[in-house]
Every structure is written in C-alpha cells, then in structure tokens.
C-alpha cells in the first residue's frame, strides 16, 4: 500500500532538505519512492510543498486532495491551507510557528487565530515548538530536522538507520547536530 507524506511550509524553511533525507532513507530501506516539489517563483516567500510517496510500486509523484496519510506543516497557517490534502483518517504534525504573509505584514488582515485548536478538533494533531527546541540545540536552522523526527516517528519509520542517513547526506560538521535534532523531534510524538 502506497503511503503519502505531505511536507508544507514557506519558501526557505528547509522542507526540501527534510524531504530529501526522508526519500533517501526510504529508498535505503527498500521502498519504491517518488517525491515531487515545485520550484521557481513560489520560493520567494511563497507557500511550498514537498510530497513524498513510498510503497511497493509508486505511480503518481503527486499527492491528491484527500490522499496524504500525514500532513507536516512547518508553519501553522500552511497546515490549514493544505489540510484538504489529508485523508480523513490522517494526522497532522504542526510547527507552532507563524510566518506572516504580505497581507498580514501590511496590516490588512490579522494572522488567523485558533489554528492549532481547530486542527485538533478535526484530526489527531501533534503541535511542536520546533523553534524553541531548535534554539535549545543552539541552531534555529535545524527546525526542519526536528519536524522530520516527529514525522518519521508518527509514520513508524523511526527504526530506519537515520544516523547513517544523516551522516551520508549532511555536511560532516553539522551531522551530530542534525542527529540530535532528529532524535529530539522523535521524542515529541
């Protein structure tokens, strides 16, 4: 049975690296894997998604509405934007983190309130303060790997050989930090 993981966020948040580590680990574990993402104009502070699908044989590289087993939102409002991509039986991992978009920056509208509560009322939701956890690790940039940790735990993929995967795919100087971040993320679920 093909499983689908949808990683969403704002351009620049590191969804692509998280998706890359995930796909490499899945291939390593013997799954067929496909991943799709959109580059280009949306990178400039726009809404972005990386879609990972794995199983015995994967056909479509994209996840359709109502098709994701898990929605991982690197930013709160993005969870709501992409929620329809989740299966009704799916779950959400959400970063309790706000990035204001231009209509909010200019004061035209407010950042929506009560997102986490609404998510929790609809689907099993794990909210994580990845920014706080990342700063405790001393590097705000590992927010993405913390969220990846929570994702793999939620999907029962925490037994894959993550230490080796990270060592083989991130700069040696940052490997230890990223392994710690991944474990910290796993511990949140």
């Amino acid at each position, binding site marked *: 049975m093909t499983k689908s993981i949808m990683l969403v966020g704002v*351009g620049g948040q590191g969804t692509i690296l998280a998706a890359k580590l995930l796909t490499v680990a899945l291939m390593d574990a013997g799954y067929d894997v*496909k991943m799709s993402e959109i580059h*280009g104009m949306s990178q*400039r502070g726009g809404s972005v998604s990386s879609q990972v699908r794995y199983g015995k044989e994967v056909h479509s590289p994209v996840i359709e509405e109502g*098709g994701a087993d898990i929605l991982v939102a690197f930013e709160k*409002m993005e969870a709501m934007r992409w929620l329809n991509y989740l299966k009704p039986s799916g779950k959400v991992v959400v970063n309790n983190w706000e990035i204001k978009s231009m209509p909010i920056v200019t004061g035209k509208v407010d950042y929506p309130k009560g997102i986490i509560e609404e998510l929790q009322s609809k689907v099993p939701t794990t909210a994580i303060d990845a920014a706080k956890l990342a700063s405790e690790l001393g590097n705000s940039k590992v927010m993405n790997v913390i969220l990846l940790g929570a994702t793999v735990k939620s999907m029962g993929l925490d037994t894959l050989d993550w230490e080796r995967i990270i060592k083989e795919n991130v700069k040696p100087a940052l490997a230890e930090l990223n392994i710690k971040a991944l474990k910290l993320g796993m511990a949140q679920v």
Partner: protein
Amino acid sequence: MKKLLTGDEAVARGAWEAGVKYASAYPGTPSTEILENIALYKGDIIAEWGTNEKVAMETAIGASIAGARSICAQKHVGLNVASDPLFTLAYTGINGGMVVVTADEPGQHSSQNEQDNRNYAKAAKVPMVEPATAQESKDMVKVALEVSEAFDTPVLFRMTTRVCHSKGIVECGERQEVPLKDYVKDVRKNIPVPANAIPMRVKVEARTEKLKVYTEETPLNFAEMNGSEIGIIASGVCYSYAKEVFGDSASYLKLGFTYPLPVGKIRDFCAKVKKIYVIEENDPYIEDQVRMLGFDCFGKNLFPFNGEMTPDVIRKAVFGKACETIGTDGSKVVGRPPTLCAGCPHRGFFHEIGKRKNVAIAGDIGCYTLAFTEPYNAMDWCNCMGSSTGTAHGAQQVFNLKEGEAKKRVVAVHGDSTFFHTAINGLINIAYNRSNTITVILDNRITGMTGHQENPASGYTLQGMATPEIEIEGVVKSLGFKNVLTVNPNDLTAMKNAIEWALATEDEPSVLITRWPCVLKKFSPEDKAEFKGAFTEKYCIDPDKCIGCGACIKTGCPALSLDKATKKVSITRDQCVGCGVCAQVCPPKVQAISKEVK
C-alpha cells in the same frame, strides 16, 4: 547503482552516460537543473549557459556539426526563442547526435503561458520522445541520441514540470565514450539556400516516413492489456497519474515516442477496448490522432483543457468525485503571494518609481515582475523575456502622439541576465529609432529568479571559470546612449534623483543601471571587494518613537510587520539584512528606525 534523481538530474545523468560532450541552455523553470547537473561532469562534458535559448541551441548545433553528441535545454517558452534555428536544423540534420529538451509547464507554476510544445515536433517535423519518470528521463536521452544519428535529425525531448521536478529511483550506468565524429565540409547539407533547401525539404518528408515505421517498432510505445472494458492512452506523467487512478482495472497504451505517433499501434489498441480515454495535459495532441482514425473517445470533452491531469482531476472527470477530504472552509487561511525578499535590491527602485503618476512601466520576466502588485503597483505590462525595451519603445512612440494627462513617459525595466538575453536588442532599437524611452536595468549581479545562475555580467561561467565581466554601462554607452547613470538602489535619495533626472531628459532616451547584489547571492571575491559590508547590518525600531504611520510597511519588506492593536511596527531580526530602506522612509520627525549598535 541506484540513485534518487529528479527528471532533470536524470537527463543530466543520461547525457553523461550517453557520451554527450557539449551542453548549453539558458535557465528557465523547470529545466534549469538539467544544465546545473550536467555542469558537474566537468572534464567529460563542456557545459555552458548560453546568453539566450537561441544562442544555446546554436552552440549545440555547432558542436554537433563539429562532431560531438550535444544537448540543449530550455523551458517551453524558451523554445519559442530557439525555434528559428530548430526549424532549419530539422532540414540540415546533424553530425553528432543532438537532443533538444523542452520543459513544458501544465498548470503554469512559474510561467506566463501554458503552450504545448508537442506541437513543435509536428510543426518542425522532428521526432519527439516523452519520458514519464526519472528512469525514463535518463534512458530516453540515449535512445534520442541514437535516433538522432540514425535518422539524421535533432530529437525533441519533451518533459513537463512533474517529470522535471519529481524524484524517483533510477538505475544508473557508466559513461560510454562516443568518439568525436569527423567533420567533413558539406555545403549541400549545411547551407540551406533554396537550391539546397528544396531537396532538403523533400528529404525531411522521406525521413518522417521512415520514422513512422520506427515509431511502430520502438519499445517506447507499448500496450499493457488488462481486459477490454477501459483503454487509456497517455504519455509522460499522465500515464503515471492514470495508473494511480485505474490501476489494473484498465488497459493502457503508453506512448513514449510521440512524433510521429504510432498510428498502427493506436488503431490496434482502440479496436481492442470498448471505452477509450485519452489522458493528456494541454492540447488534444493524441486525441486528434485517435479521432482521425475514426475512433470515438473521451478526451477534452471530459477532461479540462488546462492545468495538470493529476489523479484528483482524473477522478472528478471520470467518476464525478475525487477522494474524500476533511473539509475546511478556508477562513483560517490568508494568501501568501511570493514577495521581493528582505534586502532585495529591486525594492528601492520600485518604491520610488511607484510614486510616479505620469509613467507607464514596461516590465519583463524576473523576480522584479512581482512589483506589479501591492505595495508597489509599479508595472503596467509584461510579455516575454526581453520584451520590456521593445514594448516600451513602441508605447512611447504612441504616447508621444497624445496630449495632456494621456501623455506618458514609458519606463522599460529588466534585469542583468535579461539584458543579455534579448532586452539588449530592444535597447539597440531604442538607440536606433530614438524614442525618449527610459530604460532601467536592475543589475543584481546574478540571474535571480531561477536560483542564481552566472551570466555575462557576473564574471564567472557555469563550470566556474573566471571570465571578464561584461560591463553593462560600457555596453550601453557604446550603443550611443549619452544619458546613462549607475546608482545604488538602496540609497533612496540617489534613486529618486536619478528617476527625476531621467524624466527631465525629455527629448532623448536615457538609461539607469541599479547595481547591488541579490540578497541571496553567494558573494564572489569581486562582490566582497565591491560591496563591502553588504547585508551584515541589522536595523531596529524604537517602539516609543514609532507612530504606526505605515510608511516603512509600504516598502513591502517581509521583515517588517505592523501590529494592528498596538499600531507599532516591528522588524523580524532574523530576516533583516540591513539594506536600510525602511529607515530612509521613516518620516524625518519620527526617525524610529536605526542601525543596531554593535
């Protein structure tokens, strides 16, 4: 050896394995990463950024004539630029095998139109392949080069966004060196004056007849039979989408070699199934052929004519409904349009020009196109790469016929890479035909939008060779422009004065060049010397002084935000790179924004 590759990376791998020795492209989403990845095979393949798609294709043609296997790549609209050499290359043919990649954009994720470049294969009479997956993207490069050499023709390699940017597992091989072919001067083959081109024209038709036989035999076109109820004909990623929806409940005719189409295979397949669905993005390219053969089918009468044919779209069209969803009303979602980055050097110019009422701004393709919207509203029109100068000149000539408020000054705006792409041609036209058009070249020292590719003004080549920086101001002056000024766009006073000066130059054309690096650019040693200290400062706002007037917010910087409750603006420190534009627009009596004291 298995690797996880995107379609673009797989094409690069395929080119390397198939012994390609020369590659060129002009960057364009979703094709950009093809050349970026070919460039990594330094020593085996010469990989270059051409100044535009036409030049890139012409260099690949030259490489083929001289005896190398070559490849050029572009996005769909890029092939419009390169179509002139393509149509005649179809006549002359090749020496070393040659592949022409077109990366189409159903759904227009990053493009100004949704043209279907399969039509180019038919119009130019060149064979075409269409990979569906990353594995096929690699494998088909080799096949395309073999077809190219066997039939003496370039081969069109048609991809789409989801093929280019989707990763899959690819079984990789090693490089097979292909010796350079001898060059033999042959003017009858390579010079299409009418006396030669007329027989070439006949040869092209004969070649197509041979290709019609090949397309029936190639394993790239194959049927998978699962009963006779439903038959699906698809090419490219649509095949994967269809398999996702129908699985083993339908039979498939999967087409990988799509010009000429395998008429015999299509006829056989259609005769075996009761209900035929042709699933394809954009135009009814395959469907038209099916109907010409006399078969009724579901095609554009059922599926949308635009956008991507993702599984949900197919489900809705065929079964009337997509998968069940949670159902959200969207009230908790605010739009997140792409914006100019914090510290973007385009901001200063657009902030100043946006205040002018008596101008029309002719835009171009790049990050700066985003200035059309709030808060700048500083663009009137835009067409294609390099079109700003041409459209501006024509508009200026006509606005000059008008009187009073209807009379406008026209400002053409484009970037450094776009200048060398084709905007330079329009600028030469302005110099030649003498309109009082104002041209603004936003030189951010790199090709920004597509993710930072070197260009003739950046001082480096694709494979990292240092090369003399072509100095834009010098080029412009050499065209005969007398009124040329280079300014730092982050200095708003200088920017405002420069715009006023250009507007005051009423009878002659003028050119402004803003020169400051893209905030995301990896600085070269030359950048570090020229832009010392750039992006190292931080600014902060004194909440006691801020009166919430919103002047700084109107610069559209995403690092700023206005709290509606407290009526105070704050700066997100992580995002601020210290361009100082906000501090300059804070009213002199307020002066709430200042540099952080280190």
